[in-house]
């Protein structure tokens, strides 16, 4: 399928690389095709995003994105090598070329976008920092302002601590942070009554509450105090790979919008008269060609992981998290796939 192109492309890349004095193995996409595997940096264990499932295989919404890309580029969702990374390691692993892309609930912000030689193809999950309280112990607390002078359990080494301090300063509140090392220690401290509230990303709070035997005692406060647009992250040296990564996000979201699922994708491709579906599935238009892929690229991705909504159902729904901001634009959310045309 990709017989001649890689050669031309790597020659072009080589000359470019020599001119720019930067790359050694050529652009990321060529390296992926040559290797036959996509090397994906993931979280060491964050349920719903990327964590080993019961059989010890990585699963989660971030993992699904890697699988979809591998299916589109290499023809099989299994051609992924997962590299678990800690928060400290992740950017170096990307910069040094140890991984092809980072799909590890990383917040998209200007600093990371401009100073680290990297790019974000699009938002994969909207998260935000929230607070949870024990409403049995503190029945009067209904909003964040009621937590003035309260002690708050927070995990060390994350941005949550700073976000909380920023929010307190801006709103003239006082929070007493009680800092713990590690997610489970922070949760346990909060549950045993060490602090009045616990703060972390909404998804983290949901994960704590979902199977907690006495979860009726807890209430999540309505305020979300930070914006955490979680996005995949790539090196800046490969425009083609960037385009595929970006349009993969849109394709999976467009599939949800057009009602194309893992189960019906082949039938839709054959039967649907909807022009959006026909372009998505490669029945008519040349979306794949523009990306340097074949017409079936999105079909393979959908067969592998389903559309965005299905991946969300499978991975995030078990955490007990509602769709919220992550719903499609026409369902009251922020997910707005650019038209595939």
């Amino acid at each position, binding site marked *: 399928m990709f017989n001649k192109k890689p050669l031309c492309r790597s020659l072009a890349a080589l000359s470019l690389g020599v001119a720019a004095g*930067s*790359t050694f193995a050529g652009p990321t996409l060529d390296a992926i095709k040559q290797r036959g595997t996509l090397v994906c940096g993931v979280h060491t*264990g964050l349920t719903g995003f990327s964590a080993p499932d019961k059989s010890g295989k990585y699963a989660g919404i971030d993992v699904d994105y890697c699988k979809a890309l591998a299916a589109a580029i290499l023809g099989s969702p299994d051609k992924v090598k997962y590299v678990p990374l800690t928060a400290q390691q992740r950017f170096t692993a990307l*910069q*040094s*070329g140890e991984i092809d892309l980072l799909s590890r609930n990383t917040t998209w912000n200007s600093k990371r976008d401009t100073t680290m030689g990297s790019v974000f193809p699009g938002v994969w999950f909207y998260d935000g920092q929230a607070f949870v309280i024990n409403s049995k112990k503190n029945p009067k607390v209904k909003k964040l302002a009621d937590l003035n002078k309260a002690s708050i359990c927070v995990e060390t080494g994350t941005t949550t601590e700073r976000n909380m301090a920023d929010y307190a300063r801006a709103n003239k509140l006082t929070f007493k942070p009680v800092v713990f090392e590690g*997610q489970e220690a922070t949760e346990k401290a909060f549950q045993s009554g060490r602090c009045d509230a616990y703060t972390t990303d909404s998804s983290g709070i949901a994960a704590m509450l979902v*199977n907690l*035997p006495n979860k009726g005692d807890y209430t999540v406060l309505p305020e979300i105090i930070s914006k955490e647009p979680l996005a995949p992250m790539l090196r800046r040296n490969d425009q083609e790979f960037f385009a595929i990564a970006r349009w993969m996000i849109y394709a999976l979201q467009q599939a949800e919008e057009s009602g194309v699922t893992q189960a019906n994708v082949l039938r839709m491709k054959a039967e649907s008269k909807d022009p959006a579906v026909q372009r998505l599935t490669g029945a008519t238009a040349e979306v794949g060609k523009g990306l340097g892929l074949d017409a079936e690229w999105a079909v393979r991705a959908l067969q592998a992981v389903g559309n965005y909504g299905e991946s969300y159902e499978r991975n995030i729904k078990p955490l007990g998290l509602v769709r919220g901001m992550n719903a499609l634009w026409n369902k009251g959310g922020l997910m707005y796939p650019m038209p595939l045309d």
Partner: protein
Amino acid sequence: MNAPASSHRPFVARRLDWLRENLFSTPLNALITLVTLALLLWLGSRFVSWALLHAVWGRADVATCNALFGQGACWAVVADKWRHMLFGIYPQDEQWRSALAVVIFCGIMVFSAMRAFWHVWRLLALWLSGSLLCAWLLAGGLGLTPVPTALWGGLPITLMLAVFGTLFAFPLGILLALGRRSALPIIRAASIIYIELVRGVPLITVLFMASIMFALFLPEGVSFDKLLRAQVAIILFNAAYIAEIVRAGLQALPRGQYEAADALGLGYWQTQLLVILPQALKITIPAQVNSFIDNFKDTSLVIIVSIFDFLYAVRQAVISDLDWRHYFVEGYLFAMAVYWLFCYAMSHYSQWLEKHLSRDHRL
């Protein structure tokens, strides 16, 4: 200490004397004893009631545990997730290879501990064959399905980092110790700088260097295996400590030994290999075992460079499972028991060794 050791008095009377003298000698001491005892009893009974009496044993589903949440321990989490805890995310069909590797690593340690194996060639043969076998089992190839190192985890990783981390550090440590006592100024200076530099930084720093900084120095696309980098970092780190232990052994030898070797006309290497090192190493064995116990426990730090050692595998097994994620205390207690088993066996061994060696070998 100064208890009357009148051995013909009855046992109970002797115990009572001991109690009176050590625990109830003054009213204050008596009070402290009683308060401590009450505290221990209270904590102990609560622990026993939680960990044993009200606990859920064997295989059980989460609902059974949830019904007893906060009152009794849920050992069912260990029964359900033990494979993930011991072997991490190593492919389940291949986990027998991990298990076999654990057995071989333990075998290497046990056989090296036996005096019958204390000969250079036997030890070399044991270590080389054992290490190669384990590497083959874990990595695969030659008939076994290859498993990338990113999937290795659990107890085999902990044992591998500890055993290889000592094995390969040992020769390096001896060279450094000899170098530090060398008459050649450049070799001596280099050894001192290396040893003091490495001992001056924490293991975490070295691991960070190896895993994060090192990758930036290499050209893009070239990368060494992460596990290999961490293993090499641990080896280089341990070597500095082993060097200091060996140097202590070298200094403990009387000058007469060196002079006698000189008088026989032996050269530098002959002196070291035939006369000095065999004696020096022997007296440092207990210290080496201690340092091995240290290394064994230090390996849990590799999680900061996302290598899934045993401790992290336990955490991951529990935390990443939505059903069980509130029962991590039980998981950590299980990890504690396993660590304790290894460390206790080793420290017992080192005590036995000390006694044994002091009996048959005195300088």
